């Protein structure tokens, strides 16, 4: 015999918690390194010329 599936209330609680754990991580402040990285990538593209891709 297999294990019983958790009941609907338990599953609901689990999913609520999953969303909460994930949301807490999403809401963490983004480290500056990523904004810097995007700026750097953009700058590289601009300096290599938009109309003449290598």
């Amino acid at each position, binding site marked *: 015999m297999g294990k019983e599936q958790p009941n609907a209330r338990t599953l609901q609680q689990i*999913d609520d918690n999953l969303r909460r754990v994930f949301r807490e991580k999403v809401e963490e402040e983004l480290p500056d390194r990523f904004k810097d990285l995007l700026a750097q990538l953009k700058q590289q593209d601009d300096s290599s010329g938009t109309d003449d891709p290598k």
Partner: protein
Amino acid sequence: MNTSDPRDELVEHLPALRAFALSLTRNGATADDMVQDTVVKAWTNIEKFEVGTNMRAWLFTILRNTYYSSRRKVKREVADVDGVFTEGMSEKPAHDGRLQMRDFRRAFDQLPDEQRETLILVGASGFSYEEAADMCGVAVGTIKSRANRGRQRLAELMHLDDDEAIEMTDQATMAVIGKNRATAF
């Protein structure tokens, strides 16, 4: 026009992408390195992104591929997992019927990668089973079974079934007591 460059959209997805990386790696430094790799790959391969499709799904897919290929490389090297196994694991959760978030996080971090990933995709991020299957390169049925097993495992790790377990123990104890009493006569 600059406004039609899909790369401008990247920044909006970074918080979710980082949250996904943290959930997968359970380590802040590794997660940030993976996000960095993903952003560079996405930026330099932007022509492979189909405009009009879900960019978040595309980024998550790049990140998970990065994660699994680096995991293969380091193979059995024990990951330095933030916070996991550091606090008293055997501490009994509060018996007030509510899930304690600290216990929940700990239980979640103990799940196998595939289950953790699936639950983040379908349980927390709102992707459909079909989208998650596509992102992970597996069948929809595989995603469903990973999600079921993950939820079931969480329920066990959280001792959610304690009430039932106690009832069963009591019945078993009563049966033993009953038997002993019978043999005592």
